[in-house]
């Protein structure tokens, strides 16, 4: 094994430099080890595969992705129409004579006779019609683009000006529709001051040839691959805001899907190797050497992480340059990278076998990807989309500016959870945890137990429940998405129950851990104190996070509700206290077996409270 030359000098002034040097050494060691693992066998094959990948990418760029070929059957009688449709592989075109077509029209999704399109029955036929409409528009476009007199073919141009409304979030929150029909007749009159808007010029600021070029490129774009990759060829053309009416359509969410996957997939891929590197230390107790060196565990973890972090950053930067986007989009990616690394670290430390590692990591990455992905669909639509940092990327690529508060708002949950996870991992990165063979749940409990101080259990409980808030928020957000599609009363009931259950688990888990570590700890006095500490910690964390995230929406109103009305805070505090107390009492009475019934009881109590206020609020 390689020996570690370590800068292990003591003394406070050298401590910081020493830690940095340690991290650097470990990072170098990690890189060296990864390359020795990637031995002479792997590298040549990897190079061959990479070359193959480039070749295949080139090939598929030429031939297109044939995944939607032959979805529709179309019968035509005119060879010119058949010629027009031949370019789209989604259509299977049958050219037959008119009587045969009419006789067998049920066999086709679309039948085109004498220029008249007959649409068959069913959703496939409707979809075929939509595709035909788009293809036809493209074809018409290609004919018009060739016209000598471009402005006879495209007589109408639209210059779109986006106006930012001052009211947006609050009004949509309170259910007010934009420009709802006014109660009285007559034109609406603005209440505020009227700013003078300069009369727009009636002429286009670009030449006919430039416009023609833009029309040709935008028309050519709709090939097999670009149906999926439109987003990458940065859709904002040089023409700026000038569009013909047919180019005027709302931004498609497909763009966001592509962007998300282009950026998330390499992150997922790289974090896999980090996971594996952690796991490798644990197989056959190989990590003992690493643990025996006189270095702080946090330095070991940071050192092992550094190469992967830099690698991910390099990949993201390369991708950014490749798609020609602004380097600003790296900023929101950094907390996402940390989030992936923090989770990879914990998963690598928790999993007992490769299978478990695979499944847990697939599970995690799917959940994380959907959390990152779903809000970006609404990137152009609603402020709520900002809960995902990737929305900032979508906005940057569109050329929309975002502020520092936007950044804080969308990334704070990721920063917080990553820090908490790193802390838990750092505290547990030692022999008895890394090499234990216990089950996943037991190990999770042990991990938690490690961060609960024996000397100051109540302070630990306070902090634990406070820091559990970002996780609770994230999980509750996911539930919101999950139950979105259930019919109305069920979705609300499920959401209420599950939201309550998640909160109760977050609160109860600390006391459960303490009890499992030392059942004698839970005397009645300690029990009450523990519940109090948990309840206060939870409340403080909850209000703090709400304040941070909502402050950007409106500091005045929400701030005042949260902080000036401290008098009404005793009610939620009482709720948290009572619920934890239920769980703790069940634990004390029936031992570990009482935990689940306790949670259920606490959940019911929580729901009753919520329902009371919800109903009271409704009436």
């Amino acid at each position: 094994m390689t020996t570690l030359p370590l800068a292990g000098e003591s003394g406070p002034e050298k401590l910081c430099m020493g830690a940095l040097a340690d991290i650097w050494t470990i990072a170098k060691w990690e890189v060296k080890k990864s390359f020795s693992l990637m031995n002479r066998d792997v590298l040549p094959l990897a190079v061959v595969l990479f070359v193959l990948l480039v070749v295949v990418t080139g090939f598929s760029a030429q031939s297109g992705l044939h995944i939607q070929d032959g979805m529709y059957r179309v019968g035509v009688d005119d060879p010119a129409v058949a010629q027009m449709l031949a370019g789209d592989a989604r259509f299977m075109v049958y050219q037959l004579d008119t009587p045969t077509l009419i006789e067998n029209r049920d066999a086709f999704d679309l039948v085109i006779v004498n220029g008249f399109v007959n649409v068959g029955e069913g959703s496939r036929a409707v979809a075929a019609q939509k595709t035909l409409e788009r293809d036809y528009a493209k074809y018409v476009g290609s004919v018009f683009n060739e016209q000598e007199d471009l402005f006879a073919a495209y007589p109408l141009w639209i210059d779109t000006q986006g106006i930012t409304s001052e009211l947006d979030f609050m009004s949509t929150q309170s259910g007010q529709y934009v420009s709802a029909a006014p109660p009285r007749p007559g034109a609406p009159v603005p209440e505020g001051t009227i700013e003078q808007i300069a009369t727009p010029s009636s002429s286009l600021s670009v030449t006919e040839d430039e416009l023609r070029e833009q029309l040709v490129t935008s028309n050519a774009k709709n090939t097999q691959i670009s149906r999926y990759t439109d987003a990458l060829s940065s859709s904002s053309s040089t023409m700026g805001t000038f569009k013909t009416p047919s180019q005027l359509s709302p931004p498609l969410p497909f763009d966001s899907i592509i962007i998300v996957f282009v950026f998330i997939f390499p992150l997922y891929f790289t974090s896999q190797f980090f996971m594996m590197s952690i796991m490798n230390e644990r197989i056959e107790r190989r990590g003992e050497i690493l643990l025996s060196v006189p270095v702080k565990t946090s330095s070991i973890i940071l050192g092992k992480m550094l190469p992967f972090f830099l690698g991910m950053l390099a990949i993201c930067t390369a991708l950014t340059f490749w798609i020609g986007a602004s380097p600003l989009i790296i900023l929101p990616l950094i907390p996402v990278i940390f989030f992936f690394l923090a989770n990879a670290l914990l998963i690598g430390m928790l999993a007992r076998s490769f299978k478990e590692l695979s499944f847990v990591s697939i599970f995690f990455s799917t959940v994380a990807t959907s959390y990152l992905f779903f809000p970006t669909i609404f990137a152009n639509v609603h402020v709520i989309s900002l809960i995902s940092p990737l929305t900032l990327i979508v906005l940057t690529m569109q050329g929309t500016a975002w502020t520092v508060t936007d950044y804080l708002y969308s990334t704070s949950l990721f920063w917080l959870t990553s820090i908490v996870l790193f802390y838990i991992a750092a505290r547990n990165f030692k022999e008895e945890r890394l090499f234990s063979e216990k089950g996943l749940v037991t190990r999770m409990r042990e991990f938690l137990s490690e961060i609960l101080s024996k000397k100051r259990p109540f302070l630990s409980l306070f902090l634990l429940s406070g820091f559990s808030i970002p996780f609770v928020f994230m999980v509750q957000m996911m539930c919101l998405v999950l139950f979105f599609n259930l019919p109305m009363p069920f979705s609300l009931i499920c959401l209420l129950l599950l939201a309550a259950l998640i909160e109760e688990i977050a609160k109860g888990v600390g006391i459960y851990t303490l009890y499992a570590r030392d059942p004698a700890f839970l005397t009645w006095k300690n029990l009450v104190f523990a519940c109090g500490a948990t309840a206060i910690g939870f409340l403080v964390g909850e209000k703090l996070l709400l304040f941070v995230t909502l402050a950007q929406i409106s500091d005045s109103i929400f701030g005042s509700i949260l902080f000036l009305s401290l008098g009404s805070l005793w009610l939620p505090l009482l709720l948290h206290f009572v619920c934890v107390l239920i769980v703790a009492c069940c634990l004390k009475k029936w031992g570990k077996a009482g935990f689940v019934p306790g949670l259920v009881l606490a959940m019911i109590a929580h729901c009753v409270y919520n329902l009371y206020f919800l109903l009271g609020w409704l009436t």
Partner: protein
Amino acid sequence: MKARHLSIIAKKEFRGLFSERTILLAVLLQLFIALFSSFLMVGLTSMYDPSSLSQYSHFRYNVGYAGNDSGMLSTLYDSPDFRVFKMDLSTGVAALKERKLAAVIWVPDTAPDADEPVKITLYTLQNDLQSAIVDVKLKDIFLKYEANLREIRSERLDALPLLLKIPSSTGGGDFFEFVYGLLIPLLVFMPAIIASALIIDLITEEYQHDTLETLVSTPVTFSEMVWGKVLACEVLVPVQAGVWLILLMINGIAIQNAGLILLHVTISSLALILLGALTALHYRERTAAQFIFSTALVVVILLALSLPSNPMNLLTRLAVGTAGAEQWIVLVIVMAVVAVLGYATQRYAERISRINHSG
């Protein structure tokens, strides 16, 4: 090779999966994605075609009209979607900012038959769901006006496109290609990818945890062990894919030829699993094997997708019901690939066990 030995190995792997409760995570994941994808569909449909959200469709939006009269004004007045107010541009934009209007249109005094184009300026709200809907509805108005202007200037055109009369669309349909042409092949194929990653885990684990010696000392031969693991992974594929199909159907997506889809997925997945097994046998270490395998997987899948009538495309065609006899040709080709890979795996496993015995 004895069938009993294969099933013993396969059972051992299943016990491992169940005792670790990792299989539970896989089930949870499926449920999660299924629920999630139907959320997506609602989101996607409403974005593509906002009028499908019925609550918005009966709405009349206020639109400010500034500048000069044009042929568009009468279309706007006739439209059931809009309530038009002629006003001054600055007042209109101020009202727009206060959300009293949904859009403001400014029209110049360009004559309909002028040489230069008519340039309309459209002011809309950013960051708003309704303004996306307004955009879609205004687009129809603009298109009508464009056709009108084109008619007036038609003598200046030197070629006319073929005329197709397409009935006005009934709404919906946009989302069909996304579901059948992307979601279904992707979801149904995912178990195959998971299974091929799993075989790497199962094989490298024996090497890296040094449990191989014990296993080979039993009457089970080395190649039987490999095939037993392949069997365990293979059995998971149709089960998981079947669950997908059922979940999608519960979500109201009609899928035709479910049985044939399962048959194709099961056989194509065997090719991937054998590829994974070969990689794992060669490297005997998870990081290297997974790295090489995933890169190879991307190459293979990309290559397959670039070929017409590939297995993924076949899944799409089967699901929508337009697959013909060509599916059997594809199946035979895939089976030939599987046979080659299977032969290679068998030979490789035999070679390894010979070396083990002699060494």
